[in-house]
């Protein structure tokens, strides 16, 4: 036990050292390793699991029986309406397949029927725990099509709000993850802090969850007067609250029992499965969109790329906690450097003129009228923008046909793609660990099904 405990402490120290200057760089897997992983990994469908079980049972003896168990779609630990078709032999998972689509609302199709401005409100209905980041990726994709400049105040504000959203999303992950493993109190503490974040969102946008605050062209309106002080208050208390969560979990023997060595994912497997976010970084792949493909000026901030080595559930927990601390650091830098100035682009073809200008300027009146009746028209073409959301690389692919409605919008939902790692992780493990693995992958079903 003493040996195990020391190694846990060492692992935590190693994660907090990762990404620092002078530390050895973690490497990406080679194409050969990815090819090897791709040959071995299968992502089965529910139909395949059921058929394979039926085939096996046809000539199995009565001592060699396996059964197919349905978990969900109404199961508290599936984090939404996720159905898992699990083939069990005793307590051991032979194979499993997620069955999704129960929450499919046709968001992508719906967006094609709305103007660019109106389609924005659909974006935060996908990943409902990261509204600002979803707004941001759509705004970035549309701005890429429009090729428009965003003023510095909006850029810095976007980074600040992204980081607050990331904290919000990680807090829900931590709370529900701990709740799944029977640690009730962590959930209450996490939601206590989340409440403060939701208050900040309400302050800036008027809504707690579906904010629609980051829009193509800038921010919906300027930050209110109390904004800086409110965020500063939160950033002052939050680091000590992270210590509180860690005091409850990091060295907790039950927590370690449930998470250390559970649900291992190697670097090559994670890349072959397209996993992203903390799931990928915990496996030792130093891929963070903010570092490798910076957007909104992330290259100007001082933060570390946190990577783990083991890729198990405990490591994913440690990486996310370390990233929470990095998020505080980035948010503080953004808050300190929040410049004055316009909060949206001055291009009148994209952003409406200020209200008072309408009273004396005919052009402004025309622009205002055109924008709110027709909307803007990006040139023909397509653009892919990606951001680091709370779950991984959130991509948005927008096709424009030159009209005021997007011809096609596609979201690369990181939850949707990360979920494919579950069958591979759970194969041959016990069903109790399946819950821990699922929670640590952190899928949001709104985004899985879109």
């Amino acid at each position, binding site marked *: 036990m003493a040996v195990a405990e020391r190694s846990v402490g060492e692992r935590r120290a190693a994660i907090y050292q990762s990404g620092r200057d002078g530390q050895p760089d973690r490497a990406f897997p080679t194409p050969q390793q990815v090819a090897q992983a791709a040959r071995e990994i299968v992502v089965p469908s529910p139909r395949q699991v059921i058929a394979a079980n039926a085939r096996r049972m046809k000539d199995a003896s009565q001592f060699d029986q396996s059964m197919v168990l349905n978990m969900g779609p109404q199961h508290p630990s599936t984090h939404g309406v996720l159905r898992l078709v699990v083939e069990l032999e005793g307590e051991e998972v032979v194979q499993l397949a997620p069955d999704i689509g129960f929450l499919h609302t046709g968001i992508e199709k719906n967006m094609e029927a709305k103007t660019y401005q109106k389609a924005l409100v659909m974006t935060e209905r996908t990943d409902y725990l990261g509204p600002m980041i979803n707004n941001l990726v759509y705004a970035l994709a549309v701005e890429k099509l429009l090729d428009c400049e965003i003023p510095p105040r909006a850029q810095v504000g976007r980074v600040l709000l992204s980081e607050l959203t990331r904290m919000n999303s990680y807090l829900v992950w931590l709370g529900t993850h701990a709740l799944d493993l029977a640690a009730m109190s962590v959930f209450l503490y996490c939601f206590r802090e989340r409440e403060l974040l939701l208050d900040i969102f309400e302050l800036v946008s008027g809504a707690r969850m579906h904010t629609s605050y980051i829009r193509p062209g800038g921010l919906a309106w300027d930050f209110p007067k109390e904004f800086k002080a409110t965020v500063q208050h939160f950033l002052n208390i939050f680091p000590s609250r992270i210590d509180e969560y860690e005091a409850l979990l990091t060295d907790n023997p039950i927590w370690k029992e449930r998470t250390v060595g559970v649900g291992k994912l190697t670097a090559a497997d994670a890349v072959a499965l397209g996993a992203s976010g903390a799931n990928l970084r915990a496996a030792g792949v130093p891929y963070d969109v903010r570092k490798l493909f910076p957007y909104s000026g992330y290259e100007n901030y001082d933060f570390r790329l946190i990577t783990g080595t083991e890729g198990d559930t405990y490591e994913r927990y440690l990486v996310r906690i370390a990233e929470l601390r990095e998020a505080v650091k980035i948010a503080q830098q953004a808050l300190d450097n929040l410049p004055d100035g316009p909060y949206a682009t001055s291009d009148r073809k994209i952003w409406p003129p200020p209200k008072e200008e309408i009273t004396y300027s005919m052009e402004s009146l025309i622009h205002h009228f055109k924008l709110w009746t027709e909307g803007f028209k990006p040139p023909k073409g397509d653009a892919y923008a990606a951001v680091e959301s709370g779950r991984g690389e959130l991509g948005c692919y927008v096709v424009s046909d030159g009209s005021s409605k997007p011809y096609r919008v596609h979201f*690369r939902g990181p939850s949707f793609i990360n979920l494919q790692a579950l069958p591979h992780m759970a194969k041959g493990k016990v069903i109790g660990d399946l819950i821990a693995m699922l929670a640590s992958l952190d899928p949001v079903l709104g985004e899985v099904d879109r």
Partner: protein
Amino acid sequence: MALDNATVRARLMERFGTVVLEASEYRGDLAFRVQPDDLLPLTLFLRDSPDLQYIWLASITGVDYLGREPRFEVVYHLRSLVNQHLVVLKVGVPEEQPHVPSLVPLWPTATYQEREAWDMFGIVFDGHPDLQRILLPEDWDGHVQRKDEPLVYEEVMFSFNHDDVDAQKPYAKE
């Protein structure tokens, strides 16, 4: 050692020639138009060449360009993590023969994304282990994100007049 568009373009043109590839650049993203038959050798080359290493398949998605020939397009976004570069591959798919080779043998992450493209557009990925619907129910008719599928089949009626409601229903036309 970040790659730039010109280098990648030159490298692919040298290997595959202009016959199979039509390169374009839009807003800084490098895109190649590819024939379905050339997709597998090309992606294999992109992934396994030591100087390129596009090991991370970001997204696969379908687009329906109704009225254009070929009607569908499958768009692949590949990332090289080592070289910090994104490349876009676009495969035109005709309506009569909507077949594209599957990328599942190269990246298991394609499994769900190809199922989604099949579900939404009816594009068939040859070699996929079990191509079936993923987001819509198994017994669903049609492929909803095609442009000729309506967003809603009937208007929502704000009326308690049942004769009026019935007259607007699809079965009233039968």
